[in-house]
């Protein structure tokens, strides 16, 4: 049954890709979906590309082992779903329409009149993209192996080939519409499993009583790791969400800015439904293991697969596996698109060359990046784990100051933007490498991304203040009008 549902899922993705490919004729179609995406596909695609397989596998494992501390990874969604539209939506869309922008580094170049800002941010984005893609290619290999018993290596290549097929032919246009299908699969699977999980645990109150008898801190307000770790997660995932390029560049794609009105509401509903599984399966499996109704898990990441095998009808468990594949593939497609755009469009512009034949070259870079990520996923072993933790922190520390604050503060300067991007890039790579190679230990309660994000924000504000005399001259009149709503 799992194989049938899995095949049906991949067949539907392929059909959407064929449809989208026929509509992909220009670089605008390939990188920004022809700027013609409606509200519903826009919101569901944003949700699908935000959530990776982590929401279904790694996240439940963290809830199982850390309790409420892990909830602080998703709790910021209450703020971020609206804050993104509020802080970035209108200005990114208007800037994109006025200047025909394709990428997030394009917006930075326009804001600061600076090719260097475009180039440096493109380098940071590329580094983060490769990291994200390698871990997601590995995760997709695991899911395909679980569905079709292909073995991990072939699973990685099959998953990469399927995602590549629609990413390279239909670009982000195919990505958006497969995201809609994939997002619906994720939301339906997550909601259905939530009902089964609470039922299997005897209701939330019974689950709580079982867990608190063994360890009252797990479901205490801050969970097993305490208040500082929980609050650090909250800071990183609330503020860091404003620097995620796979979301920020989607604002260019909305067909009509007036549609932004209901985007936070729709995005919030989609996000809440898709994250129900994460909490419910995590706490239910913990209670069931404590009661002796399930054997202890070999690893926390076994929480979802073991629960599905024992407590959920086979059709639904197949749907969840498809949901995991969907979550990973939608994220991969978005990152392939922004990675290819950085190489095709941003770096040539930063070097003073006007990009040519962007549709063809974009497709070629998409293939190159995907193959590189699959090779890394298959051969690099522990390096994949290092690359995986880099992505989010790199985007947060390099893009939040210059983009999220810079687009809303006319006092920001090019020097501040460059200094903060350089700080975020070097500090994130350096600190994460030291921690990963065990040459540095970060005390419990602090996250590396927290340190790099707060440092790059302070660098941005202080350098901008020191060079404040340049601010006005670095703003083109049309950009200034967009920023001030004049």
């Amino acid at each position, binding site marked *: 049954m799992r194989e049938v549902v899995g095949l049906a899922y991949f067949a539907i993705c392929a059909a959407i890709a064929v449809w989208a490919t026929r509509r992909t004729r220009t670089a605008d179609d390939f990188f920004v979906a022809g700027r013609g995406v409606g509200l519903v596909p826009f919101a569901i695609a944003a949700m699908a590309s935000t959530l990776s397989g982590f929401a279904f596998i790694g996240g439940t494992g963290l809830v199982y082992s850390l309790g409420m501390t892990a909830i602080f990874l998703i709790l910021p969604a209450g703020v971020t779903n609206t804050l993104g539209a*509020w802080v970035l939506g209108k200005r990114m869309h208007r800037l994109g329409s*006025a200047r025909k922008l394709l990428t997030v580094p394009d917006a930075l170049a326009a804001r600061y009149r600076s090719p260097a800002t475009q180039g440096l941010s493109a380098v940071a984005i590329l580094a983060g993209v490769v990291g994200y893609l390698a871990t997601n290619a590995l995760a997709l290999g695991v899911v395909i192996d679980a569905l079709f018993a292909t073995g991990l290596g072939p699973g990685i290549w099959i998953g990469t080939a399927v995602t590549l097929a629609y990413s390279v032919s239909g670009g982000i246009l195919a990505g958006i519409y497969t995201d809609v299908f994939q997002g619906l699969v994720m939301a339906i699977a997550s909601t259905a499993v939530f009902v089964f999980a609470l039922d299997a645990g005897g209701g939330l109150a019974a689950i*709580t009583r079982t867990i608190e008898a063994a360890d009252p801190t797990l479901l*205490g307000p801050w969970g097993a790791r305490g208040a*500082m770790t929980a*609050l650090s997660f909250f800071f990183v995932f*609330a*503020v860091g969400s404003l620097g995620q390029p796979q979301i920020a560049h989607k604002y260019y794609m909305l067909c009509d800015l007036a549609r*932004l009105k209901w985007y936070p509401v729709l995005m919030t509903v989609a996000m809440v439904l898709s994250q129900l599984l994460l909490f419910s399966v995590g706490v239910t499996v913990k209670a069931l293991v404590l009661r002796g109704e399930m054997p202890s898990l070999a690893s926390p990441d076994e929480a979802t697969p073991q629960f599905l095998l024992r407590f959920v009808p086979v059709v639904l468990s197949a749907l969840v596996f498809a949901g995991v594949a969907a979550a990973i593939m939608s994220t991969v497609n978005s990152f392939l698109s922004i990675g290819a755009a950085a190489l095709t469009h941003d770096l040539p512009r930063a070097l003073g060359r006007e990009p040519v034949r962007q549709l063809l070259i974009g497709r070629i870079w998409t293939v190159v990046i995907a193959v590189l990520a699959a090779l890394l996923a298959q051969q690099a072993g522990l390096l994949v784990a290092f690359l995986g933790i880099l992505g989010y922190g790199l985007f947060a520390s390099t893009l939040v100051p210059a983009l999220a604050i810079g687009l809303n503060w006319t*006092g920001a300067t090019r020097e501040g933007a460059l200094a903060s991007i350089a700080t975020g890039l070097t500090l994130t790579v350096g600190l994460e490498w030291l921690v990963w190679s065990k040459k540095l230990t970060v005390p419990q309660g602090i996250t590396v991304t927290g340190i790099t994000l707060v440092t790059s924000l302070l660098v941005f504000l202080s350098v901008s203040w020191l060079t404040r005399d340049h601010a006005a001259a670095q703003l083109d009149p049309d950009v200034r009008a967009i920023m001030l709503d004049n």
Partner: protein
Amino acid sequence: MIALVVGLLGIVGAYVGVLLGLTSPLVPLGMALGTTAVLGGIAQLAIVRAGRETPALARTVRWVFGGMAVGFVVVLLLPAPVAGGPLLFGLPRVTAILLLVVGAMPLVVLPIAYARAFDAEVIPPTERRPDA
């Protein structure tokens, strides 16, 4: 901008406190208040139109982020839950309060406030051009 800078300094203070091994309740308090101040500061920057604050969205920012800050402080000051203690919505009461104030309240209020203020304060109909 002041809220943003003060919030960042609060977070730096909290991180320094952890690095120094301080166990004072002021350390997580600095982190909680710093984070809400940074979020509120960024939101406040984004709702200025033509150099002026937009009233409905400004009220929303103050109430939502102020409410979150109060929620964090209250939960940090309350004693940790114990086994067999009171439950609210199936969770320990303090946990439920935190989830309601910091999670559910902004989750519901912010999108609705944004939609309600959209036509008057975000993109008035007069500003809607075919190319924007």
